[in-house]
């Protein structure tokens, strides 16, 4: 990436020190009580939505991850994109994302959680699409947004169903959920939708494909969102629901099968990539699958293994993403075929890769080993299917191989990198943050007691019966050494045969044509296609066609109903209604003129006469205000329209009613007119409720000092409405202003 091509912008102070922000939150997070505590204030009272926040052991673990990895990312970013013109924007988005994550983790109210969840989706879209000039980057961002956005909708529907079944339910209530609520079909359907939403966020099969796609994001974004935090939000929600749903038959089966499939799929796709970052992304998919499996395990140790693996994964995957970023930064490529022996040029990055790789492979004295050990313990206790067992063995061996690719293949052997570059280590920003993360992983590996209280508190939220005696993180590992050794050895073989594996798995290319990613593409393309067909079929691009279609549809919809209308008895026309008759005659003559006229001006005049006729009717029916307004509107309209229409080609010749199309239009218009007339006639026979009219007539003079009730209503009784209406009039003028930018007519002509 040619970052030097951007103009060098001086880095603002806040950019350089932004990383202190999440770090400053760290003491507060550590000081949080391990006992669940909640805080709530009413927000949208009519809907029962509260600003409810809660904190407990599980939330604390997630908060720690967000803050620690967030600090590393914010320290790394200014070094990685040094001089990038929009660095400030990226850092700002990352800070906003940190806050959204903290909000999502602390949210206790379901809909509040949804709000922050969607915020992370939108920010993820902006972060993945940060390199907005690259079509690839934009497409990836859109894909991530569409998939996780659809998941967000599923989550919303799920939460609504759950809240219907259990009004006012909060996340912290899930532990003591009434079994009667649990068995309701509505509640279970809600949980199923929540699970679907969580699957999109945590990149579970078949929604996983956006995650490798999102590797178009800048490296710090991938290290933060796509390894340690946002993708874990889905498994976080699954874990929250696990205690309540543990008793439901389908829940654990679903988690186990989805997780296993995801883990296998990720492990199978990783060797098919040559780009280090995409290899890491597939291994993240695999790890997310394993996390889902661990939630699904029905015993206490599963919960402990879940939180341990969550911590370990964040502590080794984020540094490995940073390593991929450093390599890219120094050599301009991430293709593993073009890189080797980089340890000479980049010793610190090599050390980071080694430490994180050891942890990922699950070798002793690393946090990865602690996690692997507790995972093994959990699987020993429960009777897991051999499929799950076999899958996790396969996934672990591929994990060992991926770790070796990242730590050994690139950094050892004869030095090789793309010509024309002199790779060297970057500033402290590029090396220290990943080193710190990897070192924390080693420290916890050496002294598991450091993390034990944290992990136990977190696991107890999922399995309250977990005790310290059940699970010491370091016990019995010697007994399991044999099975670990099997994984390491097979993993070493996979690593040795990595290139062969690539060729073999490349034959699975046919899967790409039918896989979820391809389906996504087909659906998206099909949507556009259908929209195009519909638009072409419906949009005739002629006003007369639209009018005929609209009026005909209205007639067809209303006609059956019109036959049931009851008409009032006919009344004799009195002599004082002569004015009304004159008005009607004017309107009818105008209509005839409009139909028969052969040019636009004649038609306009005819239409104007119809309006004038109705004004006369209003005048003689006791509505002089209406008559005045109608007359003024008609006059201005006819004049302005006549002048404005002059610029359009005149369609001389046959009137509007000629020809076959004309006959159709005439028929539709006739039926529509009869229908409207019938409706109005029937309405006039309805009893008239004069309560409002009487009120205004009685109150007009005493309260508003006016005898013209119409005007009094407009300016006094309903003054606020009028204020809104004139505001609309002005807005309409504003809206049309740019549309009519033309040179003015001048007195001395063209």
């Amino acid at each position, binding site marked *: 990436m040619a970052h030097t091509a951007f103009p060098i912008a001086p880095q603002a102070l806040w950019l350089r020190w932004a990383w202190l922000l999440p770090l400053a939150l760290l003491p507060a997070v550590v000081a949080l009580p391990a006992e669940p505590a909640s805080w709530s204030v009413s927000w949208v009272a009519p809907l029962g939505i509260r600003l409810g926040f809660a904190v407990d052991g599980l939330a604390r673990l997630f908060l720690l991850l967000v803050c620690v990895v967030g600090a590393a990312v914010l320290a790394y970013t200014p070094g990685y994109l040094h001089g990038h013109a929009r660095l400030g924007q990226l850092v700002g988005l990352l800070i906003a994302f940190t806050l959204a994550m903290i909000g999502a983790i602390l949210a206790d109210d379901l809909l509040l959680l949804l709000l922050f969840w969607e915020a992370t989706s939108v920010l993820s879209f902006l972060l993945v699409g940060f390199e907005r000039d690259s079509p690839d980057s934009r497409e990836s961002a859109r894909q991530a947004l569409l998939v996780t956005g659809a998941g967000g909708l599923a989550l919303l529907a799920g939460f609504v169903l759950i809240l219907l079944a259990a009004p006012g339910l909060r996340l912290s209530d899930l532990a003591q959920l009434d079994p009667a609520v649990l068995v309701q079909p509505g509640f279970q359907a809600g949980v199923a939708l929540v699970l679907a939403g969580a699957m999109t966020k945590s990149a579970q099969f078949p929604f996983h494909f956006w995650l490798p796609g999102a590797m178009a994001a800048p490296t710090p974004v991938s290290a933060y969102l796509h390894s340690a935090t946002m993708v874990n939000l889905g498994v976080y929600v699954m874990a929250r629901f696990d205690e309540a749903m543990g008793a439901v038959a389908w829940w654990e089966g679903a988690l186990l099968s989805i997780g296993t499939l995801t883990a296998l799929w990720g492990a199978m796709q990783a060797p098919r990539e040559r780009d280090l970052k995409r290899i890491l992304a597939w291994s993240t998919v695999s790890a997310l699958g394993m996390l889902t499996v661990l939630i699904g395990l029905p015993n206490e140790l599963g919960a402990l293994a879940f939180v341990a693996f969550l911590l370990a994964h964040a502590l080794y995957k984020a540094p490995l993403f940073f390593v991929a970023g450093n390599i890219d930064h120094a050599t301009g490529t991430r293709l593993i075929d073009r890189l080797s022996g980089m340890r000479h040029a980049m010793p610190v990055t090599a050390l980071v890769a080694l430490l994180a790789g050891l942890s990922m492979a699950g070798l002793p004295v690393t946090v990865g080993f602690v996690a692997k050990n507790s995972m093994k313990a959990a699987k020993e206790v429960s009777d897991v299917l051999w499929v799950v067992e076999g899958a996790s063995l396969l996934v672990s061996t591929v994990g060992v191989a991926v770790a070796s690719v990242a730590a050994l293949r690139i950094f050892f052997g004869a030095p090789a990198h793309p010509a024309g570059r002199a790779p060297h280590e970057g500033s402290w920003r590029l090396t220290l943050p990943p080193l710190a993360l990897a070192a924390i992983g080693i420290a916890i590996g050496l002294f598991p007691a450091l993390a034990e209280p944290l992990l136990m508190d977190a696991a107890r939220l999922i399995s309250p019966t977990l005790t310290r005696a059940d699970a010491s993180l370091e016990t019995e590992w010697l007994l399991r050494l044999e099975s670990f050794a099997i994984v390491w050895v097979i993993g070493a073989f996979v690593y040795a045969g990595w290139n062969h594996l690539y060729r073999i798995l490349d034959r699975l290319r046919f899967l790409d044509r039918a896989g979820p990613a391809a389906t996504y593409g087909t659906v998206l393309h099909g949507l556009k296609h259908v929209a195009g067909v519909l638009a072409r079929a419906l949009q005739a691009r002629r006003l007369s066609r639209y009018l005929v279609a609209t009026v005909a549809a209205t007639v067809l919809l209303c006609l059956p109903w019109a036959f049931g209308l009851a008409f009032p008895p006919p009344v004799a026309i009195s002599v004082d209604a002569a004015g009304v008759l004159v008005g009607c005659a004017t309107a009818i003559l105008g209509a005839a003129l409009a139909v028969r006229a052969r040019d636009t001006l004649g038609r306009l005049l005819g239409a104007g006469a119809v309006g004038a006729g109705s004004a006369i009717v209003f005048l003689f029916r006791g509505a*002089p*205000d209406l*008559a*005045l*307004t109608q007359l*003024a*509107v008609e*006059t*201005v309209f006819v*004049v*302005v329209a006549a*002048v*404005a229409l*002059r*610029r359009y080609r005149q369609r001389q010749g046959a009137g509007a009613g000629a020809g076959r199309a004309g006959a159709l239009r005439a028929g539709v218009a006739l039926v529509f007119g009869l229908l409207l007339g019938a409706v109005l006639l029937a309405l006039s026979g309805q009893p008239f409720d004069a309560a409002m009219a009487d009120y205004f007539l009685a109150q007009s003079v005493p309260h*508003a*000092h*006016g*005898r*013209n009730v*119409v*005007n*009094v209503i*407009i*300016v*006094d009784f309903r*003054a*606020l409405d*009028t*204020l809104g209406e*004139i*505001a609309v*009039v*002005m807005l*309409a*003028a*504003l809206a*049309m*202003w740019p549309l*009519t930018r*033309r*040179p*003015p*007519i*001048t*007195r*001395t*002509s*063209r």
Partner: protein
Amino acid sequence: MNSARSILLENTVSVLYWIMLGAAVWLLLRGHNAPGGGFVAALVAVAATVAHALVAGTAAARARLLLGPLSLSALGLALAAASGLPVLASGQPFLTHWWGELAVGAATLKISTVMLFDLGVALCVWGALGGFCLRLLGSTR
């Protein structure tokens, strides 16, 4: 359209313009007790503006909309909104109108914030619709 001038029309309109504006003011002032009011007054004023534009060009008609169409409209909206403010001081709801009497010689004149409101309606509609019509006319070649 103005390739040919009509002296007769020009002279008629130059007088008619002021008659129409006068009618608009008359409609505005009588509106509270007899047919009329701010909206109709504005429509008559718009008709005057359009007539003037037809004989003198849109630029000339626009110049007679004092502040310019959109500003006139905004001023009207502001006047209408402001007419509801004084009454807030006495603790009554927004847009409750205030009435008072003014002694002019022997006669007493009733004055009210309603007048201000109706004037605001008239100016807002005149500016917006007048401007709209002028733009439409101006878009002809």
